[in-house]
């Protein structure tokens, strides 16, 4: 494997390459960035076709971008392609939107937060903040004063939302481009809409019932978590990670814990590892149940939704007893767990497993075999494997398209290497597959819990940590498989008790990108249902 990589890396001109535990950092100059990206993407040896994330960086004296890449066949390899520019007035890099379909949203995000432009990408509208926002918040010299950016009183100007901004002085003469034509019938779905799963704003161009174009607009719940993390200590960050994707909060928190533990080279007690895994899987079941219910609700079956919530309450009971919280378990901490498990924890979980198995059958009877539900789901929303990889749709969505991307298998963490479970794959990539795979994954999660629950080792539940946690200098990446896919935490530390830069890779954001790609040509009802089948969580996108 290393030979292959060396072969590829040798093609990249004047690159500085370093390696740490399968994370290869390639530093190239700004001029060579585009060329290097092309080499990584289009080579015959190992195709880096999965762009996990683009991370913008402010090094105070210069700006940088980091492309987080992996080959879809071998997710153990991570390549960080880095580059910097010293131009603080007009920082710019070449675009990669023609190489990866996931890039447009990432580039817009970097532009939004850092003011870095991507030459060749026409759509450089702000994606999270309002178009009239002053300044770039993730820059280190950003002025956080409410006088510059007061709470706005009026909605955004529609022209600002649609018209692509003129970026360069040379472009000024050119006519403004707009996302929609003047006479298109554009309807706003969201932010206040019952079926957008939060405050997602979709601008949809309609032809009768048929969707012609979808333009997502984020940021209605953008809380600036990444910026806040830079001013918080590591234990404090954990609480923010919970609230990103609140449906798999425990898993996200687990990821941050592991990233810090990795940096501290901390040995986490086995007991904590086992319990964390069980809690993660319970969270996953709860999330899938809600996802199943919400999708049914989107299709108009309210009873199915209530049934999903009913079973979810059983898990909430277990959480409440052991962790103290219902939705926000707040359970994992750096080094282990907040508290030991409740004496009845094992008993309760063991009661839950057969109950859930029984209820799964009921769910299948109620909804899976229903002719109307099948009629709605069959033959709609095809996502091919190539497109899933190119957009970066991980998790159940990617797996239903046939992309084996379960990080619990590919990069096992906690106690996942000690249990037997199968990574479920479906090949059709249709809505029904995305629907069905979630119910199947509940079954798999039950299996994992079953294997662990009786074997929780005795011992400490938390390792001793220093009062003030300082991470050594460097990049730390931890990936976990949350209920929606590949959730990665990137921490850049400069040896302080605060991180220098934290980046959360949101699996949901990619899913909205999927929605944008697969909906044109379908009906309004399909759009809503597809949203349900992708099961994104908006606060995770907006951060």
């Amino acid at each position: 494997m290393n030979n292959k990589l060396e072969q590829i890396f040798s093609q990249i001109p004047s690159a500085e390459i370093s390696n740490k535990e399968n994370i290869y950092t390639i530093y190239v100059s700004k001029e060579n960035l585009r060329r290097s990206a092309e080499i990584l993407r289009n080579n015959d040896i190992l195709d880096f076709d999965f762009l996990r994330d683009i991370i913008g960086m402010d090094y105070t004296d210069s700006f940088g971008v980091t492309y987080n890449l992996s080959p879809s066949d071998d997710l153990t390899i991570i390549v960080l392609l880095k580059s910097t520019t010293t131009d603080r007035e007009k920082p710019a890099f070449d675009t990669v939107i023609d190489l990866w379909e996931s890039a447009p949203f990432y580039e817009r995000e970097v532009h939004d937060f850092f003011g870095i432009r991507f030459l060749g990408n026409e759509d450089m509208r702000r994606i999270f903040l309002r178009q009239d926002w002053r300044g770039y918040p993730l820059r280190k010299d950003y002025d956080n004063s409410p006088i510059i950016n007061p709470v706005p009183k009026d909605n955004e100007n529609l022209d600002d939302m649609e018209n692509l901004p003129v970026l360069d002085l040379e472009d000024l003469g050119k006519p403004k481009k707009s996302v929609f034509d003047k006479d298109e019938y554009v309807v706003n779905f969201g932010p206040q809409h019952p079926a957008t799963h939060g405050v997602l704003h979709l601008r949809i161009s309609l032809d009768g019932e048929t969707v012609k174009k979808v333009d997502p607009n984020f940021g209605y719940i953008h809380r600036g978590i990444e910026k806040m993390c830079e001013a918080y200590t590591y234990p404090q960050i954990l609480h923010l990670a919970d609230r990103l994707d609140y449906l798999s909060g425990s898993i996200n928190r687990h990821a941050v814990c592991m990233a810090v533990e990795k940096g501290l080279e901390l040995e986490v007690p086995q007991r904590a590892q086992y319990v964390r895994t069980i809690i993660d899987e319970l969270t996953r079941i709860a999330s899938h149940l809600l996802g199943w219910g919400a999708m049914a609700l989107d299709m108009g079956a309210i009873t199915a939704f209530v049934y999903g919530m009913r079973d979810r309450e059983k898990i909430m009971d277990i959480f409440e007893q052991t962790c103290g919280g219902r939705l926000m378990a707040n359970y994992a901490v750096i080094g282990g767990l907040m508290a030991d498990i409740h004496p009845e924890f094992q008993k309760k979980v063991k009661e839950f497993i057969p109950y859930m198995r029984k209820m799964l059958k009921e769910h299948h009877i109620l909804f899976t075999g229903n002719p109307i539900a099948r009629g709605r789901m069959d033959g709609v929303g095809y996502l091919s494997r190539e497109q899933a990889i190119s957009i970066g749709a991980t998790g159940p969505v990617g797996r239903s398209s046939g992309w084996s991307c379960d990080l619990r298998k590919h990069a096992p963490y906690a106690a996942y290497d000690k249990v037997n479970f199968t990574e479920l794959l479906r090949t059709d990539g249709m809505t029904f597959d995305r629907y069905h795979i979630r119910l199947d994954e509940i079954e798999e999660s039950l299996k994992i819990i079953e294997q662990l629950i009786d074997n929780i080792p005795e011992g400490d539940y938390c390792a001793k940590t220093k009062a003030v946690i300082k991470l050594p200098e460097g990049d730390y990446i931890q990936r976990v498989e949350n209920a929606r896919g590949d959730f990665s935490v990137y921490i850049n530390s400069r040896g302080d008790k605060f991180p220098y830069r934290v980046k959360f890779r949101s699996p949901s954001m990619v899913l909205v990108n999927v929605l944008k790609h697969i909906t044109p040509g379908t009906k309004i009802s399909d759009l809503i249902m597809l949203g349900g089948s992708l099961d994104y969580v908006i606060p995770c996108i907006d951060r």
Partner: protein
Amino acid sequence: MTNSALFLVVLVTAVFMVVAAMALAMWLSPKSYNALKGEPYECGIETRGPSWGQFRVGYYLIAILFLIFDVEAVLLFPWATIYSSIGLDGLILASFFIFVLLLGLIYAWKKGALEWK
């Protein structure tokens, strides 16, 4: 008591109920005014362009199809009333009529007028 009179009674009752409820509501309900209240609701965002616009022809096609079949259904009703007394003749005549109707349906089907595009 003729039926028309009774019909009028029910109609007047209905109108009375509607108007009374409306008047009561208008009179008693609290009101507040602001510039945004009368604007169309579209998930909290302003509407883009006019809502009254040209709409897809598919909807009108259904309406026209309905018109054709409904008129013919209405034509069948008088036949249905006296069917039991005319027997076989009625059956043959109506079967022919329905056959022609079905032909029309099949034509529309084949032409793809029933597909929602």
